Every structure is written in C-alpha cells, then in structure tokens.
C-alpha cells in the first residue's frame, strides 16, 4: 500500500483497531471467568476476524497474522474446558503486541510487532506461512511448482501404465531441475530430480525414492516460505523509497470532528424549527388579541348607546393601547419569521457543505482490492486480472469505512472459491487468468458496489449439504429451498462453503459479517451467478448517512418513523380492497396484490383495534421486497438524524434507532428490512420452528404441483406422492400431520389409502381429506365410509376451500 494512503487511513484504522482490541481483551477475560458464554466467544472471534481483515487491507502483515492467530486459537474452544491460563495470557500478550505496533504507527513509525514469532507460537501458530506479505514472483513460482511436484509424486504412487509412468517421472524431474535456479536450492533440487528419475521404473527402488522425495519436498516448501519473507520486506522498502505521493489539494479531517459538526448543525436546525414555530405562535397571538380588542370595542359601543359614560374614556384609551401592542406583536412575529428563514437557509448551506466534506472518492474503498486479490491468488497459485472502475464516484466517508471490510471479504472469497485453478480453467476452455472486477456506480441517492468474478459460480447443492451438516437447516427443508433461498443461507452466521479451514477465506465468519455491515448501512446485498460462468455480488448502500427524510406516523399508541426512501407510497384503502389469497391477507394496490399486515399487530404491540371501513397503509419497499402496512395515522415528514441505539438494544430487531423531532420529542425509527421480513410469512416461517407437514397424493402431476404450491405458499411443508401406496410408505417413513389425497389413483386409490391410514394404529389420528373431480352423493358416502375426515371437489380447491379445511382438521399444535 502506498505510504501516503496508509498515513491517510491510519487514524481511522488505529482507532478502530483499538476498539477491536478492547472487545477482544474483555471478551477473553470474560471467557476465562465464564466459558459458557457462547455469545462472547462469537463476538471475540468476529472482532479478531474484522481486525485481521482491516490490517490485511492495509498490508500490515504482522497485525494481520497476530489477529488471525488470536482468532484460530479460539477455534477449538471448548466451553466445558474453558480457557487455560496460558491461552488467556497468550491472547493478552498478543493484544499488547498489537497495541505496541499501533502506538508506533501513531508516532509515524512502521507498525511492527517486535516479538511476533514468540507471540504466534504462544498462540499455537507456527511462525511460518506469513499471511500479509506479498511473495516475490520467483517464490510464488517456486511454491506453485512444489505443489506440482507433490501432485506428481502422488500420481506416481498410484498404479500407472509403464510408458505414462516414465513420462510423468521425466516431466517432474525436469520441473525439479528448474527449481535449481532459486537461491540456495540447487542441491536439493538436484536430489529431487534424481529421485523422480529413479521412480520412472517403478518397483522397490521407486518406493524408496518416493519416501526420500516426500521428505525433500516438505523441506523445500519450508525453506521457500522462510526465504520469501526478507524478499517481501525488501520489496516493501523499495515501494517506500519511491515515496510517490500524489499531491492532493486536500486536508485530513478527523471523522469525529465531522460528527460533532453534524450534531451541532442538527441542534441549529432544531432551534430554527422552534423559532419559526414561535413566530407562528406570535402571529396567532396577535390575531387573538385583535379579536379580543374588537370585542372590547363592541362592548364600549354598547355601553355608549346604553348611555353609560363612566370609564368610557379609559376604555377607549385601553383599546387604543391594545391595538398598539397587537401591532408590536405582529412586528415581532414578522421579524421572528424572517430570522428563522435566514437561519434555515444558513443551515441548509452548512448541511450541503458538511455533506461535501464527508464525501471521499470511492478509489479509497477500491484501493485494497488489487492487492488483496493478488495476494490471495499468489498464495493459491492462481492468476487473476483485476479491473476497478468508478473510483471517482464520491461517497460518504462513513459508508467507505463501513464497506471496507465487506469488500475485502468478498474479494477474498471470489479468488478463493470463485476463480478456478489454471488447470481447471484450461479444461473449461477459459482464459488461464481469472477476471475479477469491482466497480462503484452511482444509482440516484444510492450507490452500487458490484464485485464480479468469471469463476465457477455457486453450487446450490454444495451449499445445501453444508447448511445441513452445520445444522442451519434440516435436510427436508434444504431440499425444498429454492436456489435464491439457498444462496441466502450463505449469509447466515456460522456458514462457510470452504471445505477446509483456510487462512484466506476465514472460518465462516465472512459473509455474515458482510450482511451485518450492510444492514447497519441500510443497504442491500444481492447475489447472481451462472454455473461455470460468473458470480456477482451486488451491494447497494445510501450515498450518505447524514440526515434522512423520514415519514412520521402513529402505530398503535406509539409514534414511529420510517426512512422515507423505504416508503414507496401512502394510501387510503377501503375494506373491500383487503382480501385473502392463499390464506394470506393481501391489499389490492392498482392491479397487484401486496401482502398486508397491521403494523402494530405485526410488531406485537397491544393495539386497541377499532378498525373502520377505511384505513391508512404504507407501501414499504426494500431490497426488492414490498408489503403494505396498516398504520393509525400519518403525522408528517421530517429530516431526521437517526441515532443507533447501541449493542444493548440490538436484540430489538425492529428498531433501527431513534431520532429527535424538531419539537424536541424523541421518536423510534423502525427497521424497514425487518418489518418486511416479518410481513412476508413465507420467509418468516422458513426460519421458524418445524412446519406442519402435509402429504399430497395425486397421480396427475399438474394437480399435485398446484396443490403443493398452494399449501407451500400458505406456509406448510409438503410431501408429494403419485399414488396411494407411495403415500402410505411416505407417511410411515417420514410422517405428516394431515393427508390430502385424490380418489382415483393407480395401485392404491384414495379410498384404499384412507382405509389403510385408519387401520394403522400409529397413523389413525392423521386426518385424511379426499379430493375428487366427482361430486356424486354416493362418492361422498363411499369416502366417509372409508373414514375420510373431509371431502372436497377439485374445483373448490382453488377457492381457498382446501386451506380452510386443512386448517380446520389439523390437530392443534402443542
């Protein structure tokens, strides 16, 4: 990383790193005290992971390695054993080491950890394989060829055709000879080449040579890795020596100073609001005064006509004085209004200036991409071409800060999991070098960050398997998840597709961190891929995090706000526009049906429910999802600065924060993504407890699929069978809470199935609904005689009758 850039980013990194260290330190001590705190363990590992990421993105190898070592030292943590004294000490020493390096960095020195190796080995990490440095090209080549030689050895140890064997051995020997040019490796390379040659013939000699080879290869790898450290250091110092700092006509401003400015500005805006309201109050006081004066005058006139003279002069005098005061009040009101207006304009200009101050070029964000990609590619022996675009787009500094970690995670993932090895790429007919692009593109008030690689794409089946093996979903649920939903699993905590633990992509604390960062930014993340062609992560965040326009409304008895950008529109609806589709309440908006929920009830607030024939609904939109939400009353719109409520309130997921209104009152701001998630019962149900299972038996594929879809939309899990026998087998094997069966089917018909179910002591209590195209009384009688609990004609299925009946007959869940 360029030195000037590092210096520019250093205060941010240093402050952030210290926060991370504090979290890790207290966390480790907490774990020592009470090892059963799973949340603490997770927090510490995650924090160490973030620290590793940001250190890595600045090229601070020592810090990155130490943070990684701390993270991995907790990987095998067992709550029943707790942390040993030594482990705690090692972690605290590592923190101290990092703090030392930070202090050095603060003083403008190189942030190095003097006792790195000792600290690493105390944490149980061998002091090899440096994580953060960029190996010199020769070393990368050397390591790659060691990989090749190991592969060749493995191949030669399997039975081969004699001709193929000698060819492979010869090839490997030549590769080994080429290693002789590496400094200090000539002798070992010669020995390895000789050993490969003697493997050409096979037999006992080959076995002896293989054993010797294995040892030599391990030594070779080790010495190459050791050798590359000084080389990397030399390269780094060369880069420093160049010192090619572009002269940028800008000054560095502490983010905290900007925050303070923003808060003061907000206070100013508040007083402005108060001023203009006071001016309005004065104006109405003036009007009231004039009205009262008029009344007094009327009374005076009445008195005069009644012939009362006493006190009349004083009365007239009083009225004149009153008129004068009213005039003064009117002037005060005018002046107040003018002042408030002037203040408002000044505040608006200030806000614009502040917004501009906060904006930094996206290049600052994209800077680490090339380096991270090259470094990971180097470690894995892959070839990657990086393309960066949109570096000139300006972004809120805080957005840049918050996106840095997610971006690095995604780039690492792309090179590690996305882009194939050169061999695979050639086999697939692709160019040897993988392509990785990161681009920033303005999208109105939001900005997109797209990371795309031309690798193998995602493998939904592998994700399913992995999710099942990690206990994130049950095997049955995994099978039923659509591809888009499967991909969502990637973002769940504790998930990683990496088969083995690698330093590069981390240990399953990757994509969930990305998701979390995006949630904090009110951003969205979307994944698109095509098997064998590309994977594209599309992140979208607001351009700026300063004041957002918000809609104020009453929900239940509370006042709440939502960011205006998440509210597509507000509408008054008649009762007739609400209806159920497949058992879900929908609101008809224009030509489409949107899921509807009464917000207060959705949030579980005790709302006094007196629903008239009309209602107010907000159409909420976020990340492609939409829903209509009923509220009591719209109160207005206001610019709000939303304060997050901190870690203690993070568990209250429907709250994004709170803000102060211009009358000084405080209002809760709702989290649109969470509200939408709750408003979509289909997605909510999937993450909930095991769902009710319905077995559907029908020999016609279309009917079967239609019923299956209908039931699944309503939130049930559906098992499908093509005839009675299959249905019975499925029922005995997997079980279901209710059976919906066609009457006419091959092998065993619906009546037969019904009888079999009712005759089986284990299944007897399972309700059976028979569905038939026939609607003759004798058929119905036959069905009931067979023990069916419900009977339905096919054309009634679509009309919601099926769901109604299923709901009626289902045994009450415990």
């Amino acid at each position, binding site marked *: 990383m360029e030195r000037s850039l590092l210096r520019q980013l250093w205060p941010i990194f240093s402050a952030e790193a210290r*926060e991370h260290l*504090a*979290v890790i330190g*207290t966390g480790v001590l*907490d774990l020592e005290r009470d090892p059963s*705190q799973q*949340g603490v363990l997770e927090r510490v590992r995650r924090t160490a992971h973030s620290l590793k990421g940001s250190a890595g993105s600045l090229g601070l190898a020592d810090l990155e390695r130490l943070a990684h070592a701390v993270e991995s030292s907790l990987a095998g943590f067992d709550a029943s054993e707790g942390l040993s004294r030594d482990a705690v000490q090692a972690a605290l020493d590592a923190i101290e080491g990092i703090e030392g390096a930070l202090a050095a960095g603060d003083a403008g020195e190189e942030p190095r950890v003097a006792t790195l190796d000792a600290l690493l080995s105390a944490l149980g990490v061998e002091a090899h394989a440096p994580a953060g440095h960029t190996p010199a090209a020769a070393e990368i080549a050397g390591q790659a060829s060691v990989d090749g030689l190991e592969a060749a050895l493995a191949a030669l140890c399997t039975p081969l055709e004699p001709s193929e064997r000698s060819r492979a051995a010869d090839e490997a020997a030549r590769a080994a000879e080429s290693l002789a040019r590496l400094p200090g490796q000539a002798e070992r390379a010669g020995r390895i080449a000789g050993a490969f040659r003697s493997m050409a013939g096979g037999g006992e000699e080959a076995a002896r040579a293989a054993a010797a080879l294995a040892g030599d290869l391990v030594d070779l790898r080790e010495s190459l890795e050791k050798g590359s450290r000084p080389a990397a250091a030399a390269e780094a110092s060369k880069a420093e020596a160049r010192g090619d700092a572009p002269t940028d006509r800008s000054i560095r401003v502490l983010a905290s100073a900007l925050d303070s400015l923003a*808060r*003061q500005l*907000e*206070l100013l805006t508040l007083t402005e609001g108060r001023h203009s309201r006071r001016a309005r109050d004065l104006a109405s006081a003036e009007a009231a005064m004039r009205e009262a004066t008029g009344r007094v005058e009327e009374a005076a006139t009445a008195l005069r006509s009644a012939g009362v003279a006493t006190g009349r002069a004083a009365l007239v005098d009083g009225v004149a004085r009153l008129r004068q005061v009213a005039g003064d009040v009117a002037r005060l009101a005018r002046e107040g209004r003018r002042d408030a207006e002037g203040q408002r304009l000044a505040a608006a200009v200030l806000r614009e200036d502040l917004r501009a101050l906060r904006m930094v070029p996206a290049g600052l964000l994209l800077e680490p991409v090339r380096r991270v990609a090259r470094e990971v590619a180097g470690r894995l022996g892959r070839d990657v071409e990086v393309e960066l675009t949109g570096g000139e787009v300006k972004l809120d500094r805080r957005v840049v800060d918050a996106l840095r970690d997610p971006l690095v995670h995604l780039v690492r993932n792309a090179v590690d999991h996305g882009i194939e090895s050169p061999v695979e790429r050639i086999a697939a007919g692709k160019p040897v070098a993988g392509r990785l692009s990161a681009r920033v593109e303005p999208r109105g008030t939001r900005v997109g960050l797209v990371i795309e690689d031309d690798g193998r794409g995602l493998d939904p089946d592998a994700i399913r398997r992995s999710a099942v093996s990690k206990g994130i979903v049950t095997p049955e649920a995994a099978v039923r998840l659509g591809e888009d939903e499967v991909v969502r699993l990637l973002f769940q905590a504790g998930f990683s597709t990496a088969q083995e633990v690698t330093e590069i992509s981390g240990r399953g604390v990757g994509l969930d961190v990305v998701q979390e960062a995006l949630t904090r930014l009110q951003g969205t993340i979307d994944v698109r891929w095509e098997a064998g062609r590309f994977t594209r992560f599309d992140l979208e965040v607001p351009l700026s995090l300063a004041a957002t326009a918000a809609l104020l409304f009453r*929900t*239940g008895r*509370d*006042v*709440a706000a939502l960011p205006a950008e998440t509210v597509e529109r507000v509408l008054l609806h008649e009762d007739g526009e609400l209806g159920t589709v497949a058992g879900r309440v929908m609101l008809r908006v224009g030509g489409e049906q949107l899921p509807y929920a009464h917000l*207060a009830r959705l*949030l*579980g*607030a005790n709302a006094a429910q007196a629903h008239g024939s009309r209602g107010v609904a907000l159409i909420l939109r976020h990340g492609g999802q939409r829903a209509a939400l009923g509220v009591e009353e719209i109160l207005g719109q206001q610019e709000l600065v939303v*304060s997050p*409520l*901190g*870690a*203690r*309130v993070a568990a*209250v997921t*429907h*709250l994004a*924060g*709170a*803000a*102060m209104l211009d009358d*000084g*009152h*405080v*209002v*809760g701001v*709702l989290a649109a993504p969470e509200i939408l998630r709750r408003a979509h019962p289909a997605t909510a149900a999937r993450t909930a407890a095991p769902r009710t299972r319905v077995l559907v038996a029908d020999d016609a594929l279309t009917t079967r699929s239609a019923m299956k879809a209908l039931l699944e939309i309503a939130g049930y899990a559906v098992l499908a069978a093509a005839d009675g026998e299959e249905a019975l087998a499925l029922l005995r094997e997997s079980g279901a809470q209710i059976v919906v069966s066609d009457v006419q089917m091959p092998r065993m018909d619906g009546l037969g199935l019904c009888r079999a179910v009712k005759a089986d002591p284990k299944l007897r209590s399972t309700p059976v609904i028979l569905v038939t195209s026939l609607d003759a009384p004798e058929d119905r009688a036959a069905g009931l005689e067979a023990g069916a609990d419900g009977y339905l004609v096919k054309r009634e299925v679509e009309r919601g009758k099926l769901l109604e009946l299923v709901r009626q007959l289902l045994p009450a869940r415990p």
Partner: protein
Amino acid sequence: MAADGPVDFEALRRRLDDATRSLAGEAGPEARRRILEERAAVVATTREAVRTESVPVLAFRVGGERYAVEVASVFQVLESRGLAPLPAAPPWLLGALVARTRVVPVLDLRLLLGLEGGGMSDLAKVVVVEHEGDVFGLAAEDLEGRIEVPKEGLAPAASGPFHWVAPDRLALLDLARVGLETRG
C-alpha cells in the same frame, strides 16, 4: 533532674557527640538505622494508604436496592420526564431520551436483573452512562449522589453484572455486561 550515682561522662559524651553529628547533618550508626526505619515506616503507610484508597461512584436506588456506576463512566444525569416510549419495545426497554446531543435508549435495570417491578411510575431519574462508545440510560428511583467507597472490604459479586459489592450491599455495575447478558 537529680543524679543518683556518679555521672557517666562516657555516656554523656557519646550523646553529645551524636547530637553534634546530627546537627552537622551526619547521623551515628544507631540513629541512621532509626531514621531509615522511620522513613521506611512512612513510605510503607503511604503505600498502604494508596492501596486503601476509595473509589468514586455515583450511587442510585432502583427497585428498593442500591446500585452504583463508576463516576468516570457517567455521561449525564437527567430527569425521566423527557423519556419517550419506543414502538413495540420489550418491557426492559423503557424508551429513549435526549442526552446532550444524542438520543439514547433507557433500560429498566430491575427487569435486566430479573427483579420485580415495571413501568415508569416511580422512576424519576435516568443515569446516562457511556461504555465503549455505547451511551445508554439506566432508570432510577432516586439518586444518592457521588460517594467514595473504600476499596477495603469490597467483595466480588456471586452473580449478576457487578464488579463488586460493598459491605453495605452497594453493588457496582459492570457496564460491559449490563444489558448484554441475561434478560429477566
């Protein structure tokens, strides 16, 4: 002073010599040892005094019990009047209010600690604290004010988010854990 026997001129001379030496700034071996011992004793007591120094805390009352937070972590103390409820908040989250320029959540310590109680009726004060950049309020019935708790006699708490408990049962909250552990 009456002398009962012959005057011990030897002893007198020795004392006189000692006095002269100490006036001249040098002490005899006996005196030097004594002086050093005295100094050591003084130094030792000041060290001791440091160790028995007290901790400044802000003490308050909630749910009929006494709690405290370190004075250094107090952000502001407010009346609970400005507290606004948050939509569909759980009972332990009483609402939010403005502390300086920030909007901070206010927590019900009674519920966080699994005690009886609820509602704002008798919570008149809010102690706003800052911990690791997180600012939040703890509702209180009454403020006791700043007090100095001698470090001597502090016992670690058996359970709960406390640093220690004083002999008079004043419990110092461990802000790193308050509201992040078990919720009652």
